[in-house]
């Protein structure tokens, strides 16, 4: 059954003209379309020791990232690099991991690797100074990596881990070696003046994956994520009292990382606003249908729309418990934002509740609609 569904979905997806892919990045700003001013530092998961920088994609927070009609397919990994000496190429691995058996953290064993692509290198350069690379490492569409687990069979894994493996490099940071762009959480205790901006109690979103010692969480997000062919949805938190985005005084922006997932609406003193942001490189001028629900609903597939609507809904679209429509808009050059709540308008009584948001992007030219990922908001 799974095989036949996989073949069916593969056929449908292979028929799509996927001239582009979307990087799913969980970071305060959109590194593809916004000037990134929120980067706290560049760093490695475990100083200059060998470790994997892993983003945890947790089902309590995100669903249907890269949904290929029930299961997840990814087409490579996107990330930003800082190299202390550009003239010597750096080496890294791409990794996708299963969760460990204890239910917390990545499975760092070899069987825990969904895939590992070893020893990729950065481009050549004659520059002996520090510098940066934005790396797009992609598979062809037929070579997408299928992640175990399926919404149809109710076997979706609770979380998976995607990232890059960095070899040990004693030269870093003094003379050589490379690191990743990161936005530190408020409780990182690193002295960061810009970065993530979330409510109290938010968990660390990333891990340092270690092979010979226990892995541990890291209090920052990286500019790093999987390439997918489904559209992306992020929720942004707006805190007018914050300068964590590094924007000029008087300019208030939305933080699409931890502030959207864990906004502070306690009223003491913060009362964050919310905004939705849908991005899509595949249908950059498509119609966008925003919707919401009170928490995630059971995954639902529109069988009558098979072939014209890709992916599963998670906001209650089964006709019994319908989603809350939030409006229709056209994407403009691959992006559309929709304001949900101005700062100071969400009542503190909602603390402890959970919302979920998802959208459909419909490409009128190709006649194909596709669910974005769904994202939770934990007040």
């Amino acid at each position, binding site marked *: 059954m799974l095989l036949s569904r996989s073949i069916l979905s593969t056929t449908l997806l292979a028929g799509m003209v996927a001239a582009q892919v979307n990087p799913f990045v969980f970071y305060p700003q959109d590194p593809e379309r916004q000037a990134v001013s929120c980067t*706290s530092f*560049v760093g490695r998961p475990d100083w200059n020791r060998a470790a994997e920088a892993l983003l945890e994609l947790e089902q309590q927070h995100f669903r249907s990232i890269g949904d290929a009609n029930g299961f997840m397919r990814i087409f490579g990994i996107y990330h930003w690099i800082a190299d202390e000496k550009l003239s010597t190429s750096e080496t890294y691995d791409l990794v996708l991991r299963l969760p460990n058996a204890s239910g917390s953290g990545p499975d760092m064993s070899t069987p825990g690797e969904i*895939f590992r692509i070893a020893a990729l290198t950065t481009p050549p350069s004659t520059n002996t100074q520090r510098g940066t690379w*934005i790396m*797009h490492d992609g*598979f062809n569409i037929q070579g997408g990596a299928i992640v175990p687990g399926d919404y149809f069979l109710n076997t979706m894994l609770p979380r998976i881990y995607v990232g890059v493996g960095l070899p040990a490099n004693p030269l870093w940071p003094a003379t050589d070696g490379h*690191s990743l762009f990161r936005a530190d959480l408020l409780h990182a205790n690193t002295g960061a003046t810009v970065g993530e901006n979330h409510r109290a109690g938010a968990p660390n979103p990333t891990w340092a994956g270690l092979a010979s010692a226990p892995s541990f969480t890291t209090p920052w997000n990286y500019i790093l994520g999987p390439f997918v062919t489904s559209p992306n949805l992020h929720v942004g938190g707006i805190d007018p009292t914050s300068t964590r985005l590094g924007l000029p005084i008087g300019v208030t922006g939305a933080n699409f990382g931890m502030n959207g997932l864990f906004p502070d609406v306690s009223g003491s003193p913060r009362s964050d606003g919310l905004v939705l942001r849908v991005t899509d490189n595949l249908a950059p001028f498509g119609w966008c249908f925003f919707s919401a629900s009170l928490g995630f609903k059971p995954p639902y597939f529109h069988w009558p729309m098979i072939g014209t609507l890709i992916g599963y809904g998670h906001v209650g679209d089964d006709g019994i418990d319908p989603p809350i429509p939030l409006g229709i808009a056209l994407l403009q050059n691959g992006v559309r934002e929709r304001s949900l709540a101005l700062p100071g308008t969400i009542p503190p009584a909602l603390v402890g509740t959970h919302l979920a948001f998802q959208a459909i992007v419909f490409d009128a030219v190709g006649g194909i609609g596709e669910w974005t990922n769904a994202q939770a908001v934990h007040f």
Partner: protein
Amino acid sequence: MLREGAVLAVLAALTVVSYWSQGNKVLAPAEAPPIAAALEAEPATAAAAPASAPVAEVTAPMVDRSHQLELPDGTFVAALNGATDAAPLQQFWGSQVPWSPIVGVERNDQGVDWYRHENGSYSTTQMVWRSDLKRHAAMTRVGHQGPAVTPAIGK
């Protein structure tokens, strides 16, 4: 109706799978192509037959593109580092970076050849071992220059 559709889809899938199983044979890594040859872009379509040729004989030859890389402008260059069936460069160039023509081939100190683009970006193809697929498969890779100012090192 649904069953018929599913059967047709499965048949189509088998055709696709069959095609790719033929096309994805692992080849021995080739020598790095000479720069001039690698840079010799080819048009996307085969040359048309002379106008005077009989219509029945106008049969465009099947062009094997498996060792080539399709560029966003529709032309082709040699795939680097012995890659076979690499994804078109447009797929991973990024939608927000204007296309920039190739101006040279450079090899990094790890022995990997890269195309250098006019804007300072680099792109390449290479075969990698895919543990999930249990075979080698092509990657299409792009490195764009990031921010001019590199952030400070964090603890």
